[in-house]
């Protein structure tokens, strides 16, 4: 055990997907860390960048294809309008449990002191500019920079 006796001091959460269920999982984990007095930083890479892309973040969907938890045949999930239907249903349920929408959740995260980083490589790959992204992100950095942010005892990394 280290000097903190195994206590978690900081969570470094990497989000690589843009499906609503993954984005929310990562957000809840980051916010939950701050609520427990644990530091939290997020790294948005590949499709995860859509969660902080101003024009895209309001239009994220639940995955209906290749998602066994949808309990429907994969072919059905691929029909037009299925993703929209599943997403509308999920958003309704989320509002019931007091889940904020993606933009409000980002506001809560930044107000809570969560640092938000965009992956430089993925930004270049998708031709995104910093101005395209949510205003409060802390910067566009390399994976090496992100590891540096996580240095120190009691840091844990999580890939979503």
């Amino acid at each position, binding site marked *: 055990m280290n000097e903190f006796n195994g206590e978690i001091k900081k969570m470094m959460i990497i989000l690589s997907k843009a499906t609503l269920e993954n984005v929310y999982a990562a957000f809840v984990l980051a916010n*939950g860390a701050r*609520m427990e*007095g644990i530091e939290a930083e997020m790294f948005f890479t590949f499709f995860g960048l859509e969660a902080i892309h101003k024009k895209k973040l309001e239009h994220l969907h639940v995955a209906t294809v290749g998602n066994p938890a949808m309990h429907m045949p994969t072919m059905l999930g691929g029909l037009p309008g299925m993703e929209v239907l599943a997403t509308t249903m999920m958003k309704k349920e989320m509002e019931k449990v*007091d*889940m*904020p929408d993606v933009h409000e959740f980002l506001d809560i995260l930044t*107000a809570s*002191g969560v640092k938000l980083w965009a992956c430089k490589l993925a930004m270049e790959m998708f031709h995104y500019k910093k101005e395209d992204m949510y205003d409060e992100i802390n910067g566009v950095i390399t994976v090496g920079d992100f590891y540096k942010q996580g240095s120190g005892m009691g840091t844990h990394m999580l890939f979503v």
Partner: protein
Amino acid sequence: MEKKIAEKIIEVNEEGYLTNFSQWSKEIGEEIAKEANINLSPRHWDVITYLQNEFKNEVPLSIRKIGKSGVVDIKELYVLFPTAPLKTATKIAGIPKPASCI
């Protein structure tokens, strides 16, 4: 279990939360705050009073709701109670630890 806070014997759980709100007093709140290294200002008391009212009205607490309460925004809440704000503030307020994830 029992704990002596501000010269009084108080019922608390294993995490130090009061189990009987009627035993709470301002002095007890101040003593718990001191243990958490917090000096209570009038702004702290605004938040504590708000939380106690929500508890009395049986409203479940969440960071999101507090942010929308008009009493304090989330940023200030973290300034007032830097480490685990909701957990710390409810402990000082003498009410149960919230079970919310948001």
